[in-house]
Each structure stands twice: as C-alpha cells, then as structure tokens.
C-alpha cells in the first residue's frame, strides 16, 4: 500500500484532548490558533471519554474547556503521534489510512496517564481488565446490567469506576483497596481541605448503595476456564473467593511520558520536569496534566490552563490565579500519593508460571533470572511486543524496584507504526537532512 504524507504547518499544537489539552486549547485561542490532536476517536481524554458527539457537547458546556467549537481550534482524532523532533519543531504521526508530518511553533504535550497493572496468576484471562479500562469499555457501549464485578487495586479511581458501573446496572460485589484503613481515612480527612467534589460524590454514592469497601485487600488469583469466573482476594490476611463476571483492577496511574522523553525533555523522577509556566527543558515544548504528576482532573485543568495562558499571552492576574489553584491541587497530589502508596506484598503476587509480558508471553520465572531490564529483554523478548513494555515495564518497576528495571532510553517510534508510514516519512527525513 502506498502511504500518502500530509504536511501541516500549525501555530500551537496540542497532543492529547483530555482535560489538560482542552484547557490549554481554550486558553491559547485567546490569541493563537490551535491544532488539537488525539489518538482517541473523540475529545475528552480518560475521564470524559465517550466515543460520541454527545459527550463532546456536554463537554463544551464546561467552563474550563469553553468554546471548543471556536474557529481557531482545529481538531483531529484517530491521530497517533509516534515521534517528535524538538530542534526542528516537528512531529510525525499516523492515522488509520495515512501519515502526517506536522510543524509547530509551540507544542503542548498533554498525553495523560495509563493504569498500572500487576501480574497475578490468571490475570491474562478474558474479562480481567483495568478499572478505568472496563469503565472505558462501558463508556464505549459495553452492556453490563446484571453483571457481577469485583473492583480492585488502589486509589480514588476505584470509587469513581464502581459508581459508574453500578449506575449502569452492574452488581459491584466489592471494592478491594490495597491501602490500609488508616491511610485511606487520613486521605478522606485531607479531602476536607481539597474538596474534590466529584470524588466525594462518588464515594458517598458507593456508600449509600451499600457497596462493600474493603481496605487491606487485594487480588491474589484470577480463576476461570475460557474466561474469568472467580477472583481470590486477600483480605486482612485471609483468602476470600468471590464469584464474578469481571475483575476491574488498577493499582494507580503511570504517566505517558514516552513522547516527551523521546523528544529529549528532562525528567524528574517518573514525570516530565516543567517550570512555573509548564515549559519543559526543551524550548517551545510544554507539558501539562498527568504527565507531570498524577493529581486528578483539577490539576490537569489548571496546568493546561497555565500552559495555554502563557502561550495565549493571557493577563498576568488570570495566570496568577491559575497558578495558585495549581499549587493547591499539587498538594492534593502529594496526599493522594502518600495515602495510596503500594504495599510491599504486591511485588510478590506473580508465581513462576504467571505471564508478565503479555505481548511475548514471558513468564515471571524466566524474567526473574535476570538482573536488569535490558538483559531480560535480550534473553526473553519481554517488552519487545507492540505495547513496547508499557504494561510489563511498569509492573516490573514495582516487582523488581526501579533501579535497573526502568525501560531504557526511549527512541522513536514511541508506538508501533506501519512499515509504509515509516518508509514514507523516513525517506522525507533523509531528504531534509
């Protein structure tokens, strides 16, 4: 197949149409024109995901994301950015049918986060899914009325997910939160200082509906024949077996920093490092939202707002207000991470037969023999499949500790792309250089 390359010259390019990207777009359009790109079929990111225009319409009613229909915003969906070049101010992307070469004046990376999955025996059975993952499927139309669902893992997302599942008619058997009761209670108190209203409402409703919320509890095995039938949960030192149709399980969020890293942006721990204006170490490259720290939707909105206001040359007072709000949500982030820190038992859930790398089917028994990621990769092919280690790399960071088990330097393409795309864009790149 012959892939055509489309060339686009844009002013402000925003990668990611979640809360951070949308807030950045709105603020920047005060004086700039914006090209908003997302891999998803529609705007909204993770929290406001919805494959339909309906979701978009309710979105545009929100204050922060304002006039999405502005003629200054051009939107493109189903576009996956797989490489960027900060020196040339260029991005390369793939769509279902073609390839794109995009030039920008300024770039905002608002690429969000994914869930952290930890391998337990049986976790590769169909119907074992991420917590946000199952929620995304439900938002994509999956009927779950009457289904029995165990929600497990860690963090406030579990409450939000249980609330959505229940509202669609599912029977949420239990929420198994790995954190101890005292940490969760302390976090609940801190919510009084950082009133995350959506979260409080979801927590309240799950309580009102009598959904059991277990602390000190986590899944230790998934059991089933062709698909999931039962989940074994360790609860306060005892094993409890729960019959269910789905396990919705996520142990927190992992930032999607690959594109920023490939473009040479400096990191601070697991996250992209930014200054007060959300600017990264690379000129003209800004980052906003979960890529700079996991702090919930308000932090993402504020950071997007700051980046967009800087680019759109907003009045100083407006910018300062956003920065103050951002500081508040960053403190919320700190209390969140403290409360839902992962317990050491979670690093030993897999047995030797448990598949860790789901792309190449590499078991823990085979990976365990190696002393660092690169060696394991060379000998077992773990992390060499299409997800490029996004799932197993993050899991191994918990199972083996970060030192030596971080995915090594990120090179393009940061997502697998069709050979034709690389050929079409690659040839052009050599022409230019």
């Amino acid at each position, binding site marked *: 197949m012959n892939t055509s390359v489309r060339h686009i010259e844009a002013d402000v390019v925003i990668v990611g149409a979640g809360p951070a990207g949308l807030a950045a777009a709105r603020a920047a359009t005060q004086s700039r024109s914006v090209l908003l790109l997302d*891999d998803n079929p529609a705007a909204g990111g993770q929290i406001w995901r919805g*494959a339909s225009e309906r979701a978009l319409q309710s979105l545009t009613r929100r204050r922060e994301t304002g006039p999405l229909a502005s003629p200054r915003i051009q939107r493109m969906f189903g576009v996956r950015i797989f490489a960027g070049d900060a020196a040339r101010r260029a991005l390369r992307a793939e769509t279902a049918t073609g390839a794109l070469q995009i030039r920008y004046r300024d770039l905002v990376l608002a690429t969000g986060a994914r869930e952290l999955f930890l391998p337990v025996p049986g976790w590769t059975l169909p*119907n074992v*899914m991420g917590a946000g993952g199952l929620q995304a499927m439900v938002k*994509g*139309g*999956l009927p779950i009325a009457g289904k029995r669902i165990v929600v497990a893992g860690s963090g406030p997302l579990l409450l939000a997910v249980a609330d959505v599942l229940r509202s669609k008619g599912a029977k949420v058997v239990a929420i198994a939160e790995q954190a101890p009761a005292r940490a969760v209670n302390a976090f609940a108190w801190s919510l009084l200082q950082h009133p995350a209203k959506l979260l409080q409402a979801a927590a309240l409703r799950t309580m009102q509906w009598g959904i059991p919320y277990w602390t000190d509890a986590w899944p230790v095995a998934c059991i089933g024949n*062709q*698909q999931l039938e039962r989940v074994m949960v360790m609860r306060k030192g005892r094993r409890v077996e729960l019959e269910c149709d789905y396990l919705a399980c996520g142990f927190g969020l992992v930032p999607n920093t690959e594109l920023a890293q490939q473009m040479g942006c400096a990191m601070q721990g697991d996250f992209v490092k930014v200054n007060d204006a959300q600017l990264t170490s690379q000129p003209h490259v800004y980052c906003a939202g979960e890529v700079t720290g996991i702090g919930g939707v308000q932090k993402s909105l504020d950071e997007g707002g700051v980046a967009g206001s800087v680019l759109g040359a907003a009045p100083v007072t407006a910018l300062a207000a956003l920065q103050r709000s951002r500081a508040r949500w960053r403190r919320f982030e700190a209390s969140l991470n403290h409360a839902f820190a992962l317990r050491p038992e979670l690093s030993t859930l897999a047995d030797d037969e448990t598949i860790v790398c789901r792309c190449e089917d590499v078991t823990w028994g085979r990976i365990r023999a190696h002393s660092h990621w690169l060696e394991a990769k060379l000998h077992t092919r773990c992390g060499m499949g299409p997800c490029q280690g996004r799932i197993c790399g993050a899991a191994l960071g918990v199972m083996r500790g970060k030192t030596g088990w971080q995915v090594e330097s990120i090179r393009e393409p940061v997502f697998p792309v069709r050979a034709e795309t690389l050929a079409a864009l690659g040839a052009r790149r050599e022409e230019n250089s």
Partner: protein
Amino acid sequence: MSVSASLSVSVGGSNLRVPAGTTVATAVAMAGSPAMRTSVSGERRGALCGMGICFECRVTINGQPHQRSCQTVCAEGMEIETT
C-alpha cells in the same frame, strides 16, 4: 432504538446491530465472547486497558490486521474478525 441511531456490523461472519458510537471492542463482546485474539503461546485474550495502550484487543477490521478494537468506533458494514 431508531434505525439512524444504530448500525450493522459483522463479527466473525455473523451480523450484529449496535448503537452508533459503539467501539469495535464492545461489538466483539456483544457478539458473545470477550476474547479478541490468540496470544503467541496460544492463550485467548480480551481487552485489558481499554485505552489503546496494551494492544491485547487487536482484531482484523475490513481485512486490515492488528487494529486496536478499543480505539476504533464501529462504522456501517464493518467486517470484524477476531484472530
């Protein structure tokens, strides 16, 4: 549901009507089995992340293999094959 709000796709050769906006991953699950593909060691796998990262939900769409079903919205007449 009105005709305009639903469309018809085929999953493994059998026809299915789904509401507009349904993802391919959901259509496959609605067709009866949560499994989308066979892994390199022969396990049946279904969707995991639901957001285009894990590549577990790859299917063949209109003859094009390795499409992420969770990131693709159903279109009228789409032919979907699990693998």
